[in-house]
């Protein structure tokens, strides 16, 4: 447990000392939200109609920017060997890294979402549902991305491969995340969609822990 906490704290500290990676993700998200009204025109009805989908898609693409660093830096400087040789469970260490990743990229996206939603003219009454859906969905993005990031370690041009590997797996999160907001806007109960997001998340935790840990071990060979 000590080791797991140490990994979490170290990654948070590293993100705090060199915040460029987190800020890039956040800036991409904000810029994309600002660009959209320019692209499709400033009609409030049209924007309100697509706001949820745009916020989700942009959050998804923005998070893709950050995965290459999740294990790549540790791989390049040899720190992965220290993690692999820790007596603590590698699966738990992977989850600690995912949690740190979410806290430094996913959570800022959730916090920036109200701004993006306002720019895109999302009806304010749907905002709580959007935030709840993002809070449940973005951890899944971190977990699924971790599997991809661990798999492409050591591969040349892994950064190019990663989005292709991970994006198909993002589809369920995107579908239910947007559907929750749409249901809310249509006056229906969004709970079913949120529960499905939660189910996906609870499934992603063990799958990512085992999958990414196995891929990491493979990269150490």
């Amino acid at each position, binding site marked *: 447990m000590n080791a797991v906490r140490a990994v979490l704290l170290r990654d948070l500290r*590293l993100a705090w000392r060199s915040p460029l990676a987190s800020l890039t993700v956040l800036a991409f998200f904000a810029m994309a939200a600002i660009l959209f009204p320019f692209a499709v025109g400033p009609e409030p009805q049209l924007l309100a109609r697509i706001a949820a989908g745009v916020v989700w898609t942009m959050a998804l693409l923005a998070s893709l920017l950050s995965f290459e660093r999740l294990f790549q830096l540790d791989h390049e400087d040899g720190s992965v*060997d220290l993690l692999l*040789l820790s007596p603590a469970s590698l699966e738990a260490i992977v989850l600690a890294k995912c949690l740190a990743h979410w806290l430094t990229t996913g959570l800022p996206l959730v916090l920036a979402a109200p701004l993006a939603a306002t720019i895109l003219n999302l009806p304010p009454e749907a905002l709580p549902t959007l935030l709840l859906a993002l809070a449940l969905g973005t951890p899944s993005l971190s977990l699924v991305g971790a599997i991809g990031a661990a798999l492409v370690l050591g591969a040349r041009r892994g950064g190019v491969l990663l989005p292709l590997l991970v994006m198909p797996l993002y589809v369920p999160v995107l579908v239910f995340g947007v559907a929750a907001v749409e249901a809310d806007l249509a006056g229906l109960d969004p709970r079913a969609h949120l529960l499905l997001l939660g189910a996906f998340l609870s499934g992603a935790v063990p799958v990512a822990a085992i999958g990414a840990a196995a891929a990491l071990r493979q990269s150490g060979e």
Partner: protein
Amino acid sequence: MATRDIAPRAAGPCVPRRGFPDSGRAGNSRDGGPALAWAGPPLLRLARMSPSTDRLSAASLACARGGRLVFRGLGFELGAGEALALRGPNGSGKSSLLRLLAGLLPPAEGAVRWNGEDVAGAREAHRARIGWLGMQDALKPALALAENLRFAASLRGAGPDAARRGLEAMGLGALADVPARRLSQGQRRRAAIARVIAQDARLWLLDEPTLALDDEATGRLGEALAAHLARGGLAVVATHVDLPVRLAGAIDFAAAP
């Protein structure tokens, strides 16, 4: 060139002996795999100060990486308080053997044993006894040396005192709060060695520890290594520099094909 088993524990004037039945066969293999020859200094047993009876042994190890056979038919036996040197040209398999001994890489053939027990069957226990120094320093540039070492120590359940002790042993006490990116390559190497010292491991696996080290630091490394061996620890060191410790044996890797 014949493949032999290193037997540092043999008494008297040591002659390479065939400790394992298939070592001769492996040496005569014609499959193009590089052969290994014993060419170490006279085998010396270090004075033991602890009653530790730990023993690391390997029998008819083969290593394949990326479908290419790096070596085969390698065997040795190392007792408590003994160090083994790995020598040979680049790419001959020294680092691969260290990864194999650490359990980071599964052997293509044969087994690594700790006190007679295959380490593949007790991975967590094996990881806990390893002090690892890879080719890279594994330091985070943004973190202070002390932070880097404390992190590595807590990965292994050790306290912050160990990190301080390691830094002092390598003469880095005054630089503890300096971020690793501000340090020279030699200082970073020292810090990586300090991390091994701080880990209090039974088995040190060091890959070119003297890389970028000056004479003083090499001396400190020698002292730390000698102290480790005196406590009954074991060490396997890939190096092309003579370390100021007495070695129990050496494995010479022939050139890679």
